[in-house]
């Protein structure tokens, strides 16, 4: 913290300046989203007025329209299915590896570890093209399974990196005590380390969930009308120009964002260090 003793006795002007700039940034970063939230609560006539309307009686009409629309519900359901499956698959595959990488030294450990980082960092479009070829030969194009497989390219590294960091914070003594009591390696992992790393596993799961939910590029190519996810459906609204139903677009956008906001706030403490894939230590900001 860079607040010196001298600063604390500065005049109120300094505080006005600080809060002024903070609020200024807040407006820049929040207003666009709040405005769209506003659009979703307006009727068609209220949206297309010049100058724009700043005070009105909010209506939920757009939400009723969107939630009764089959396309939206299907895509939402697809997003949900693909996201949960991605998280589960990556958790099952990734957690044992994360534990072993954190606890044991074995040849190839660093290689696996950094290959996973590279996997997360390389541009998805580069993996998408060969995956498309593979899936079309395997008959998996336009299935949700192909999407889950494609999503493990970013979700598996996140899970391994984040949970490894948490396994490292579990004191080794506890497992050693378990070994003294006759526990096996598997037993020490499942009964001692795993329960203690639970917060880390939750964080990792939320992070990979958010990334899978937010993905567009893989879903745009690997799905069709029946299997497309919510972001893909939303992107089809962008092509059409004014005259389309802004209220419905805004309402669908807000509905897609709701889970994102809820889960981001749950995982807020570890979001930044998770998103930087362990390249910084312990970025707990709030």
């Amino acid at each position, binding site marked *: *913290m*860079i607040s*010196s*003793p001298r600063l604390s006795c500065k005049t109120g002007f300094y505080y006005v300046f*600080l*809060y002024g700039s*903070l609020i200024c940034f807040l407006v*820049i*970063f*929040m207003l*666009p*989203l709040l405005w*769209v939230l506003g659009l979703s609560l307006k009727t068609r006539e209220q*949206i*297309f*007025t010049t100058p*724009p309307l700043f005070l009105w009686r909010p209506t939920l009409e757009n939400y009723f329209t969107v939630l009764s629309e089959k396309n939206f519900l299907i895509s939402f359901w697809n997003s949900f299915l693909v996201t949960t499956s991605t998280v589960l698959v990556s958790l099952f*595959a990734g957690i044992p*590896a994360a*534990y*072993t990488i954190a606890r044991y030294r074995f040849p190839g450990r660093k290689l*696996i570890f950094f290959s*996973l*980082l*590279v*996997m997360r*960092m390389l*541009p*998805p*479009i580069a993996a*998408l*093209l*060969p995956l498309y*070829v593979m899936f*079309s030969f395997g008959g998996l194009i336009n299935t949700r399974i192909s999407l889950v497989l494609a999503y*493990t*390219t970013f979700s*598996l590294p996140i899970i391994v990196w984040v949970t490894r960091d948490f396994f490292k914070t579990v004191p080794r003594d506890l497992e050693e005590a378990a070994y003294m009591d006759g526990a*096996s*390696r*598997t037993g020490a*992992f499942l009964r001692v380390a795993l329960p203690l790393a639970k917060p880390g596993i939750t964080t990792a799961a939320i992070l990979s969930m958010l990334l899978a939910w*937010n993905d*567009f*590029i893989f879903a745009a190519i690997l799905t069709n009308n029946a299997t497309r996810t919510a*972001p893909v459906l*939303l*992107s089809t609204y*962008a092509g059409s120009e004014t005259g389309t139903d802004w209220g419905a*677009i805004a309402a669908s956008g807000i509905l897609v*964002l709701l889970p*994102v906001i809820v889960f*981001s*706030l749950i995982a807020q403490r570890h979001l*930044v260090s998770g998103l*930087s894939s362990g*390249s*910084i230590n*312990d970025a707990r*900001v709030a």
Partner: protein
Amino acid sequence: MRHHDRHHGSAISASNTGFRGRNYLAQIAKLADFWFIPLTIFPTVALSSAVFGFPLLLSLIMSFAAWSIDEPVLAADFVGLRNYRDLFADPVFVASLCLTLGYTAATVCLEILVGLAIAMLLNQDLPYIRFFRIALIVPMMVTPIVAALCWKLLLDPTYGLVDYLVGSPIIWLGDPTLALITVGGVSVWQNAPFVALLLLAGLQSLPKEVVEAATIDGATKIALFRHVTLPLLSPYLLVALLLRTIFEFRAFDNVYVMTAGGPANATLVLSIYVYQTSFFSFDLTLASAASWVMLLIVLTVCLILIATMRRKEPD
């Protein structure tokens, strides 16, 4: 048959009675312990090889071949570097490469400047500062497609809020120069909060004693920032720089929704180029070559990142 039955039975009665069953389980446990490292590593290695290692190898091979997706795989001819030569002879690709490098440099610089400013503000010890820190998480995590869609509505020349506030109808996404700036601006809007929170974590980890000592020695605020804060923060700045470079270089979502590469290829970043070459022109070998050019560029940045991380974590 009998053999099979015995195994089946022991698995069921393992927990309550069978002595024999416990023995059997103990043997499995012993084996699992012996093979613990390979067994735990295997799923991750297998899955990542299948969805990442193998595909990248495939695209590397494709980048040296003449082949189209409706032909059998074995019909592919090895053509050496022809695809790469074609690629660099394609003015659209070269323009796209330059554009992407420029776009990346500009957005990353802005994100770091804005992020640093916000991080300094958020680092003050003020009442309710937590509220501002948490609020910043929202734009950072917003689904990129939704963010781009929101901005598309906001920037609408007839009914958009931005043109109302500016006071004149500016066609943000229709003009070639302006479109690129606008698309980059939206990316800065979305990602500066991440940089801010990352640098804030750095600021909070600074050793307090050093800062206090400098203050007691009479360092001015500016001197403190230049000679104490900035050098101590540099590892975090480097990580922010590398990470954002990697992620801006792959820019796709915001561009796709807002301009789709247009007008007149003014926002045709490399990801969009590869996307169009693969899935509209279906020139998969040329697209593979282009994606390997992308991969090599990102891999270089990535190796620098790994080098900095290894320094931090020696074992």
